[in-house]
């Protein structure tokens, strides 16, 4: 009786209400996605009525499954192709930028810093329109894969900088200075001491760029040319309102799996290297740092 009264008098003290809201949110957030994944295994053509279990939309159906339908497979291939190119270009540029910005002491650092932050806050349609116009009018770059890669790298760089920079700040200058004291050149200290320490962050940023690229819609769509340059999000956008088959769900599920594997890998590598190196900073766990990416 007393406990009930205590609870009633002090509903905020015990985090019951918050716990309910939190778990309710988790369910609301994840279950629809789970159901969509479930329907990708539907035996029939419906995306909303369950008709039995089958793998037909993945590889079974000879015409319409993800494996056999050339436009679906093409979308998957294009998504992965763009992601690979995006990673390979954006990460080195971003790491360099992060290094430069963190260590730069001078007047140039401030404006470059602002420049780097802008893509993070620009609505995608603004960026997509500006890229479309500059490619068409000035740079004369035809729309298609090249244009898509250029666009994706442009917004990916800033994310790489954010990831790498937070790690750089927590590493601090001590290790390099120790190396310099022991006689290493600036470049040597960078190569032999800092880079290995940065490896988990670089790996994490690779995975972040992968996920960003795979999920991007607006920029990729605006810079696409024809059916062969369509990615999975574009396929979903154009097909979701019609009566497409659950092959669309299957396609999306494959993408989600790829992304989650990538992010999971990043997390585990990050944590493993973290614990191996026994980093000094105590403010963040790996989870926290991935969570804090947006800041």
């Amino acid at each position, binding site marked *: 009786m007393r406990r009930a009264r205590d609870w009633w008098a002090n509903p905020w003290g015990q985090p019951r209400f918050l716990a309910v809201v939190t778990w309710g949110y988790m369910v609301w957030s994840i279950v629809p996605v789970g159901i969509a994944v479930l329907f990708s295994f539907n035996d029939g053509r419906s995306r909303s009525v369950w008709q039995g279990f089958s793998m037909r939309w993945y590889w079974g159906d000879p015409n319409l499954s993800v494996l056999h339908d050339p436009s679906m497979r093409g979308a998957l291939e294009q998504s992965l192709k763009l992601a690979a190119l995006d990673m390979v270009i954006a990460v080195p540029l971003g790491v360099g930028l992060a290094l*430069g910005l963190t260590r730069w002491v001078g007047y140039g650092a401030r404006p470059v810093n602002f420049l780097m932050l802008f893509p993070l806050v620009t609505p995608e349609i*603004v960026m997509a329109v500006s890229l479309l116009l500059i490619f068409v*009018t000035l740079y004369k770059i035809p729309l298609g894969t090249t244009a898509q890669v250029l666009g994706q790298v442009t917004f990916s760089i800033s994310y790489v900088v954010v990831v790498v920079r937070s790690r750089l700040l927590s590493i601090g200058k001590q290790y390099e200075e120790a190396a310099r004291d022991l006689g290493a050149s600036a470049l040597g200290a960078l190569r032999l001491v800092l880079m290995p320490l940065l490896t988990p962050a670089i790996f994490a940023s690779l995975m972040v760029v992968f996920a960003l690229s795979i999920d991007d819609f607006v920029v990729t769509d605006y810079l696409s040319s024809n059916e062969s340059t369509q990615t999975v999000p574009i396929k979903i956008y154009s097909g979701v309102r019609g009566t497409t088959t659950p092959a669309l769900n299957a396609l999306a599920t494959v993408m989600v799996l790829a992304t*989650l594997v990538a992010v999971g890998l990043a997390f585990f590598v990050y944590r493993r290297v973290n614990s191996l190196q026994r980093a000094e900073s105590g403010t963040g766990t790996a989870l926290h740092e991935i969570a804090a990416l947006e800041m």
Partner: protein
Amino acid sequence: MTRRWFWPSFALPGAAWLVLLFLVPTYAVLAVAFGTVDPIFNNPVPVWDPLHWQFSTMRGVLDDLRPGHVFWIVFVRTFVYVGISLAGCLAIGYPVAYYLARHARRTKALLLILLIIPFWVSYLMRMLAWIGLLLPDGLVNKTLMDVGVLSHPYGWLDGQSSSVILALIYGYVPYLILPLYASLDRIASQVLEAGRDLGASPISTFLHVTLPLSRHGILAASVLIALPMFGDYYTNDVISGSPRTSMIGNQINLFFQGGPQRTVGASLVIVLSVMLAVLMSYYLWVTVRASRSETIL
């Protein structure tokens, strides 16, 4: 001295990329909006020299921005949708972030993983999931009919503004919760305990200590999702087929899909950007300040 240029040189390639592919394109939008159109192919003809800029298109767009006119209606609707969606996201997101940051101890890791998952599921995939549920023969209608609330299937996807707003909330709330959690997590517990030690009740501690301290986090996270939401057009396209719910992104998109008025589209982009510039500057100011101090005390 090589030392001075050592670090900046690493930043050079990235900075050059951003200048060429972010800054210059921004100028291209201006050059196109204040330029002309080639009549044969309907291609925009940019005018790079500011002295030769033509303002007739922009004047026309601003004209249609007056209260009661076309673009005014769309902008107002967009503001309303974003406002309501933001409020919804905060109403749902803040309790979750708070719980995660302050209370969940044993389940924290699990909850964080569950929180991160939708963050990395493609936005359109989540819309696909939502639409699958809202179809006339989908689970939502089935359940509501089974329970007796509905007598026949409701058209959730038939041009309903409530569906669009709910979809926006569903789509954007993960992007709000994570930064909010990060900033709430940083509030040192000692400060809160100090408040409690000084005799404040839990509610009072929340209202007078936690909430003000998380103010920056709330504002930054809100700006972080409001900005992309303003430019959103695909949510409306997939959730509602109707012009009744179109947002400013849809109008911009319309002018870039063909026809002789890409200058109008570019002008609309400029107007949108100017309106968001206020929010953008605030966010940048907060971020730069926050990055200078590691914790908020």
